[in-house]
């Protein structure tokens, strides 16, 4: 499913955060949103998910204006893996994952055996079946992230949004997570949009990069065209040194 953002602006009580942003994200692509702290990445993601309503502009999922859709209809099209997941009660992981079926249930319905089996299958696919009976608040940050990605997959939405998913992860898990997202994008034909601070993390997996600076699109396009040291230097206000690794991939370091 393609995502079309047309001239959206958003302000928190007169403080503009997003300024006239327009981007188009193709169906089945992995798009990374890059920018410094306060550049508007999380706000942008929340607008796409209808968690926030832009003061102007519109967001189209294929040709459907998100404003015309209910939260339930949006949840069938867009799943979201939020940054904050520290306050979840000690539910077993399987209970958190199976919540992904919520958009398909009416008020009085509870998940049935098929839903639970599907949630287990998704956990197995992510090599995380061992988490099933563990309490959500007693697993590591990385495992929580995997559980929430599993929940997003159970939601069966064609678009998946992730807000800085690598935040709580160690060095190796960051790279594993990005490869996992790449696989999900390719195998499930999902459109994935993820925010990140780290250009090196997405350089080999993202199809499309959007760089935000001060609430505006600084540049966007194919990864190889956008992920250049001068662009990175501009959005982070720091000198960048580029090193080419053995695979011919550019790695960026702040001087």
């Amino acid at each position, binding site marked *: 499913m393609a995502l079309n953002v047309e001239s959206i602006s958003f302000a928190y009580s007169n403080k503009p955060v997003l300024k006239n942003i327009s981007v188009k994200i193709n169906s089945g692509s992995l798009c990374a949103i890059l920018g410094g702290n306060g550049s508007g990445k999380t706000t942008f993601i929340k607008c796409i*998910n*209808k*968690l926030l309503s832009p003061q102007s502009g519109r967001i189209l999922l294929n040709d459907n204006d998100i404003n015309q859709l*209910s*939260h*339930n*209809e*949006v*949840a*069938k099209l*867009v*799943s*979201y893996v*939020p940054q*904050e*997941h520290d*306050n*979840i*009660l*000690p*539910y*077993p992981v399987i*209970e958190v994952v199976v*919540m*992904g079926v*919520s*958009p398909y*249930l009416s*008020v*009085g*319905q*509870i*998940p049935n055996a098929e839903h*639970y089996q599907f949630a287990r299958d998704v956990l197995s696919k992510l090599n995380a*079946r061992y988490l*099933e*009976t563990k309490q959500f608040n007693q697993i590591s940050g990385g495992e929580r992230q995997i559980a929430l990605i599993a929940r997003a997959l159970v*939601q069966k939405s064609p678009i998946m949004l992730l807000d800085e998913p690598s935040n709580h992860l160690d060095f190796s898990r960051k790279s594993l997570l990005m490869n996992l997202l790449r696989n999900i994008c390719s195998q499930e034909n999902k459109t994935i949009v993820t925010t990140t601070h780290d250009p090196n993390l997405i350089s080999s997996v993202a199809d499309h990069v959007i760089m935000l600076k001060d609430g505006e699109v600084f540049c966007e396009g194919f990864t190889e065209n956008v992920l250049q040291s001068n662009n990175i230097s501009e959005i982070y206000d720091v000198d960048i040194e580029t090193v080419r690794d053995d695979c011919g991939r550019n790695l960026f370091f702040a001087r």
Partner: protein
Amino acid sequence: MQQSQGYMFKQHNILAIYLLLALFVLFFVSLFIGRIPISISELTSDSRVYSIIIELRLPRIISALCIGVGLAGSGAVYQALFRNPLVSPDILGVTAGCSLGAALALILGYESIFSVQLFSFVFGLASVFIALYVSKLIAPSQIVTLVLIGIIITATFNAFLLCAKYIADPYDELPAIIFWIMGGLYRIGWNEAISLAILIAIVFVGIYKARFRLNILSLGEVHAKSLGVNYTLNKIILITITSIVISLIISNCGQIGWVALVVPHLSRVLVGPDHKKMIPIAMIIGAIMMLLFDDLARSITSAELPISIFTSIIGAPIFGILLIKNRGVNW
């Protein structure tokens, strides 16, 4: 893993069956407990005994069951919505509102039970609606704002209650206010029992059906909305229906502390925090506890004691034991 799931499933259902059996036995035993001891053989032989059981004890026992279900269910809903284990339904000022309403009715000379209950019910609901309305004006999605406004309303209504007590006639009105606030099921007749039973049956079905949605709402607004749940609307509906129940309970029985706070905790210790399992267990335990407390209140001395004495004396230590045993693991 499959076996473990099956085992957990069976364990939860077996517990519910045991608790229902205990409730049934207690229900039966309660019919024969009271200031006038009654044996089963007297039931058919003495028409006076029959009348005590049918006219006095049965409506009271049915009401105790309903009140237990209502308090425990409402407590579980509030704790999930506010994502705070220390929350009970009086956080938005419903108890303070009900108490003030009853005190005003007694001072203004509306001494019939119906008038006191009506004033109490209206003031209790008013406090919650003021809290919801003001929080909507300030920050609709901020649950902390709602809690803070609830604290302000509680403090204000309690101050008015103090004024009411101060100006009340110390020989007549003041004891009536204090005794009313201390709580008890002695005012309950068939009319009150039927209205409680009907309303709480409706709410029971509502809360029971919302038990999976409560899991989602307990994750907070961001998670709930992204899972397709209208957080604000669901929150307002659940707060409104539980507040109606609490207002009705307090307007009939006065303040009954601790049950709404302790029972959800106890249920979480027994079956975990998943509301699909926890809500039905909490409702059954709530019914058992209230029935037990009422039995004690009406039979431990020759004069009836206020029920809140027992809910506090027994509820507070149970809460303490749960906190020590649990060490916050289930929340």
